[in-house]
Structure formats: C-alpha cells, structure tokens
C-alpha cells in the first residue's frame, strides 16, 4: 500500500516518483478540504508540531502553520530573532529543549545547508525541511510541480525554464530534482555569474538568452534576485539585470505561444517580472500559494501516519 519511502522530508533528492505521486494524490483530497465551508479535518488532533524558523520567512511559515491547523495539530512557533540562539545555544540543544515539550514533528528553516539532515540524525522527531540555505526547499518544489500538473495536466514531457539567481536558490535545486523525477525537461537561464559552475552535470541545459529560453519552454519559473544572500556584485546593476533577464508583456507578446508564468515569491516587481506579467492570466503565482497549503498538509499527514500509536 501507499506509504512514503522516507521517514523525514529532507529534500526531493531522497524521494522517488511514487512518493511524489502519493503526495499529489493526497494533496488533491486536501485541496478539496480547504475549499469547504469548514476547512479542517481532525486527523492530527493528538500531535504537536514545532515550526522552527532560524531564518526569516513569511509565506512559507504561514503556509505551514495553516496546513498544520487545517489538520488540527497543536503548533508552537519559534523564530531565531527572539530566541536563545542569539545567546549562543547550539542547534541540537535548542531543538532538544523544544522536543522535551513532547513535540512529534519539526518543520525547520535554517540558513545553513544540511541543517535539516544533521538534525534528523540527532533527534527522534520527524523533520520537514522548510529550506536549508541554498540547498533544498522540497515543499516549494512539490507545490510548483503540483501547480504545473494542475494547469497543464501533467509534468511529464513539459519544458520548464528556471530563470534568475540559480546560485543562491534552494528552490532551483529542489525543482530540478522534482521535475526530473517526473520526466520534465529543464533549462536554466540567468547571468552566468549566478549559474553554479557544474550544474549542467545534473542533466539540465543552460541558455543565456532569455527570449530563446522563453520560446523553448512551456513553463517559466522565475526566481527572485536574492540581494540579501549576495556578498559580492554578481551583475553590474539591477537595471541591467531587468533589461536582460526581466520578463515584461512586450517580450511575452513576441513569443507565439502562451507560456505559464510561476514565481515562488516574494516578487521584486519591476525587476524579474513586471506587474502586468505577474498579474496576467498566464501567471499561476496565486494558485501556487493555495496549492502550497494542500501540499504541506499532504506531506505532514503522510509523515504523521508513520508515528505509530498503540
């Protein structure tokens, strides 16, 4: 029967195609649930989930929180800004202190790559990675694929271009793994300084010209320029970035087909996307947000199922 092959959700890298299918199938049911007059189910009423955000987040944290509440779990929130992390406590100590309060599942975002993986080896609770540095952001990739599947019927055989700051992006890496598992073709597009050196070894191609990339693709997943992660100048100016890699209506009109526009948010309007593109019919950005809740409900539900009670 249908079970996840993993005991924690650390990254898409550890999942297989069946896991993704199961998550999507479960998310279909939860999407129905969250569109009812009463938007919750009692499945997780005896479980407690800790949301540990060692790095700022608005929508991912809200989305997880809502997903947990829709499943009737008890939740506690923690953000590093107001915590003892500042006083020098280690990650394992912080988490073990929280686990002593009888927490069953930990959702964690952390600025360091591998933090979720590390934690899963040292604590007994289920871990859901909500983003670790520039490594993985599995629930985002799942909701992206789910949104493509919803819009275009399937992911298999679709051509997806990921545009922008690939170097600092955990969304890009998770998306590459997820899309490849489902048989999509992937191209990356962005300034060469923001493309990791050996990324084509993952089986993706690279295109420097935005217009050519858009002409090739069915779906354009546009990433945010992450100014806060840039320690040096990767491109001369924001204006130049926008001219070379920003998508505007005129550019879309020059392409002879309607491509799907996606963005994990938050959008720098006028930088990677103009407002008329972000708000156009081709954009599924707000569908991504809605699907995010259903996907996170599915992931948490399927992991919770493994916590046996007698």
């Amino acid at each position, binding site marked *: *029967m*249908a079970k996840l092959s993993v005991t924690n959700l650390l990254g898409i890298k550890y999942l297989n195609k069946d896991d993704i299918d199961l998550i999507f199938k479960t998310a279909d049911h939860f999407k129905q*649930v969250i569109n*009812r*007059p*009463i938007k*919750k189910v009692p*499945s997780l009423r005896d479980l407690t989930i800790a949301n540990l955000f060692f790095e700022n987040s608005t929508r991912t944290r809200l989305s997880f929180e809502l997903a947990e509440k829709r499943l009737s779990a008890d939740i506690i929130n923690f953000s590093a800004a107001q915590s003892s992390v500042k006083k020098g406590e280690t990650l394992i100590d912080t988490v073990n202190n929280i686990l002593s309060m009888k927490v069953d599942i930990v959702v964690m975002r952390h600025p360091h790559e591998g933090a979720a993986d590390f934690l899963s080896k040292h604590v007994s609770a289920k871990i859901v990675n909500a983003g670790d540095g520039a490594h993985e952001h599995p629930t985002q990739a799942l909701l992206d694929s789910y949104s493509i599947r919803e819009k275009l019927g399937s992911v298999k055989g679709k051509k997806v271009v990921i545009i922008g700051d690939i170097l600092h992006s955990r969304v890009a890496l998770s998306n590459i793994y997820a899309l490849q598992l489902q048989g999509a073709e992937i191209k990356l597009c962005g300034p060469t300084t923001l493309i990791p050196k050996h990324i084509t070894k993952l089986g993706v191609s690279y295109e420097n010209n935005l217009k050519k990339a858009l002409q090739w693709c069915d779906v354009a997943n546009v990433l945010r320029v992450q100014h806060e992660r840039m320690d040096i100048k990767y491109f001369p100016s924001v204006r130049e970035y926008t001219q070379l890699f920003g998508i505007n209506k005129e550019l879309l009109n020059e392409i002879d087909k309607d491509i799907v526009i996606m963005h994990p948010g938050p959008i720098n309007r006028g930088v990677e996307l103009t407002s008329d593109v972000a708000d156009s019919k081709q954009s599924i950005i707000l569908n991504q947000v809605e699907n995010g809740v259903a996907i996170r409900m599915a992931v948490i539900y399927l992991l*919770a199922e493994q916590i*046996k009670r007698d």
Partner: protein
Amino acid sequence: MAKKTLLNEKEIHIILHRLACQLIENHQDFSDTILIGIQPRGIYLANRLVQLLQEEYGIKNIQMGKLDITFYRDDFRRRNEPLQASKTEINFVVDSKNVVFIDDVLFSGRSIRAALTAIQAFGRPNNIELLVLIDRRFSRHLPIQPDYLGRQVDVIKDEQVKVGWKENDKKDVVYIINSDKN
C-alpha cells in the same frame, strides 16, 4: 478459508426493493432528502438505490453525494497499513436537509461515527438516518444503530462479511468468509 453465501442475487434484489420502499415511506418525493454513500463500498449500494428509486418508482431529482471519511477516522496511526482516501463529492449544502447515510456493512459503528463528524463540514443537517445492507449484530463499539437494514447477521469476530456488486465484483452476492485456519 470457508466461504458461505448469505444472500444471493435474488434475495439482494428483493431487499433493495424493500429498502427503496421504506425510504419512500419516510421521504416521499425526496425534495428535502440527501442520500450520502460512504466511500468506498457504500457507493455501490447508494447508486443502486438511486437507480431503483428513479427507474422503478419514478422519483426524479434525487440528490446523492459521496462522503470519504479517511481523515475523520479514529484509528489514524493505529493501523499497520495506511488507508487510501477516496473522493468526496457533495456539491450541495446539507443545511436543514434530511440526510441518509448509506453503507454496505455496519460493524463496529466507527465508520459511521467518523461520517457523522465529516458531514458537519458541509453544514448542519436537519436529521441523519442510517441505511445498511448488512447489520452485524452484537459487534458494535458505539451506540449506533441502523434505521433501515437489509439483513441482520450474527457472525463471530474471525468471520468477515463481504458484499459483492455486479458492477465491480461480477455478481450481486453477500458472503460470510471464515478466515479460520482449520
């Protein structure tokens, strides 16, 4: 594994007609009534009853929904094998309606308990009744009894009642299966 036929096709046919008539007795033209099949196995029975009511008894506009109770069950994390959810299709409001739950076998009553919780997500029905084809007497864990029942049986715990439908299992039949290793 011993298999005994409890009801054959003809007996099921007669019972379905009786259940349809009993429903008409209480619900007349079904204008304020909603039939809800409980997923997955209650759907076959619900479909049959709707078909009978429409074709044999000329009742039009019967509202029927399908309710999945997976996320409302009280044995989540207690089972060895995870349950697969089915689709819920209730495209109407159940507020102030007379709801009839339809399921094939009533055993512990826990599924119906879950269904009672699940239906609340769709409004506050005026009342809820329960129709089952087979009532396994003396096996209830909860104070839940059917309002309409096809056949009452006394079976021991090791025995399983299996309802087969033509559209899915080739023929209409109810078996009692003894899983005893003898």
